[in-house]
């Protein structure tokens, strides 16, 4: 991987983020009514002094292009405005909630890829077998179930029928003072249901995709060669075939990341997971626009970073791309 590629990719990512900032700016202006009132929040009951200070801070009585400049400058220095509901800077609010979201999304992504690919590989061994039929049916069902409803069904199941996992929040109150290790276990325990809920949809898609991708690869000459030289089935499937079938899976994994964040928003709401999605939901109900825009900004940044990481791993996985700028 060349450094110039990385620099170019990061530069492009920053450009996309600038786009998000401009979009945020335009969205606030798109809202009907006085932007100062919109920023203060319609539920806030803002006083005239507050409105005046907002007009001052955002330069709302200056020309639009100057306002845009001020806004971009503010964001660039980490100032995403103030939440008038929480009476805290938006950046602080998000900083408190970004880690739980990353934990949830990354766990769901890892779970869905690991289990999905494994099922897909097993299914590809026999294209007309039981496992293949299961993967197809499961993929169609997984696509059709609303993720928030899966979560609710799991809560009903695990809260009343099989009380094995906690169904709400991220930590038990009674363990707040326990040792770090116990707290970590507690968080993992709380993570299981939300992460699985989020993973199920994508798990089904990865299973179907990796089955198709494996079937394509398993027909190629080098697999026949591997078979001829007497390699074991496991080594053929996981060593020879999967490595080559992995590229389409990686592509989709990168593209799915944005959808995963959208799903996390619903899952966090259902499970009361204290992340950015939950914050976005609460803020939208309160029309707390600075916070909503801050979440949109950070969620987009997560997608941009995930895309850069995908591009990098793509180059690591495919030696043919390495030499190219």
């Amino acid at each position, binding site marked *: 991987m060349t450094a110039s590629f990385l620099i170019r990719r990061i530069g492009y990512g920053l450009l996309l983020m600038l*786009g998000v900032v401009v*979009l945020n700016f335009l969205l606030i202006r*798109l809202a009907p009514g006085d932007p100062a009132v919109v920023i203060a929040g319609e539920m806030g009951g803002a006083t005239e002094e507050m409105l005046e200070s907002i007009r001052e801070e955002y330069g709302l009585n200056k020309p639009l292009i100057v306002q845009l400049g001020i806004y971009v400058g503010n964001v660039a220095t980490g100032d995403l405005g103030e939440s008038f509901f929480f009476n805290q800077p938006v950046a602080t609010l998000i900083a408190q909630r970004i880690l739980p979201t990353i934990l949830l999304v990354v766990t769901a992504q890892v779970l869905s890829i690991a289990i999905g690919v494994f099922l897909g590989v097993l299914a590809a061994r026999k294209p007309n077998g039981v496992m293949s039929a299961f993967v197809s049916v499961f993929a169609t069902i997984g696509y*059709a179930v609303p993720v928030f409803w899966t979560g609710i*069904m799991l809560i009903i199941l695990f*809260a009343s029928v099989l009380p094995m996992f906690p169904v709400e929040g991220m930590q038990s109150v009674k363990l707040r003072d326990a040792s770090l290790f116990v707290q970590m276990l507690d968080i993992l325990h709380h993570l299981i249901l939300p992460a699985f809920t989020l993973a199920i949809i994508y798990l089904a898609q990865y299973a179907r995709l990796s089955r198709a991708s494996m079937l394509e690869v398993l027909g190629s000459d080098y697999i026949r060669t591997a078979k001829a030289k007497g390699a074991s089935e496991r080594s053929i499937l996981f060593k020879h075939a999967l490595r080559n079938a992995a590229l389409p899976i990686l592509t989709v994994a990168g593209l799915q990341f944005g959808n995963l964040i959208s799903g996390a928003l619903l899952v966090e709401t259902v499970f009361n997971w204290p992340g950015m999605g939950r914050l976005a939901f609460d803020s939208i109900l309160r029309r707390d626009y600075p916070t909503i825009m801050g979440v949109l900004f950070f969620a987009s940044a997560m997608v941009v970073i995930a895309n850069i990481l995908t591009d990098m791993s793509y180059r690591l996985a495919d030696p043919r791309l390495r030499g190219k700028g």
Partner: protein
Amino acid sequence: MTNEISPQQVTAYKAESPALEAWRMFRRNIPALVGVVLLTVIILATLYGTFFYSGDPFDIVWAPHEPPGVAPEFPLGTDYLGRDIIAGMLTGGGPTLAVGAVAAAITMVIGIAMGALSGYYGGWVDNLLMRVTEFFQVLPALLFAMVLVTLLSPSLFTIAFAIGVVSWPQTARLTRAEFLKIKNLEYVTAARAIGAKDKRIIWTVILPNALPPLIVSATLTVGVAILFEAGLSFLGLGDPNVMSWGLMIGANREYILDAWWPVTFPGLAIFFTVFAVSLIGDGLNDAFNPKLRER
């Protein structure tokens, strides 16, 4: 028995258009037919169900949390306010389906326009439009749709519009790829050689030939849009004056441990609708790509 082909047979063979051939394949696909039947039943129930079963889904008609199958007047029970669940199920599907269809139409119009221009003209047009597409792919779709709906104030149309605005990039990419594949084929060159203008080539030469994958994608987009609408209504961002399946789940969410039925039935309705749509989509895909059927 002779091997000669009669003139009638020749005409019969010629008469089969690609669309007819696809229909023949589709007709034999049992899951796809199940999907068609299921979707028809659901659409008929949401359109005409209230003729046979009247009742306002917002009316409080009975004690709260009546379990299903106990009171004969309310076979699916009542919700946390004592509202009839069947009435909600029958009236709540219409908005969901309508928003799904309109949102998918908006998605296809924007996506096809962007993809067609990008793929056909190439060069700086392609570059610009693809950067715009990438930008829209960076925004988490549901979050962006939530922001749009809140800013525009929720109504069925603004919801459909918001879903369309956040979902078109994939269609644009697909259309672009199809246009790139088709635009250098001989019949396009031939059309250009007889003096057809760009507009004519895009609309009457390339687009009809790019339609099969786009039809499949449109079907699946309807499914995604229905899930989107359900998600937004669940979060309480739907039109508050319109009953919908998502809203039923969202409204009863706090009480799931006391009563499972007010959330379970609407969820099943959403599931079966999207399931039917995706069976149809898969069937169309198989019908248009007979070679893929082996997989």
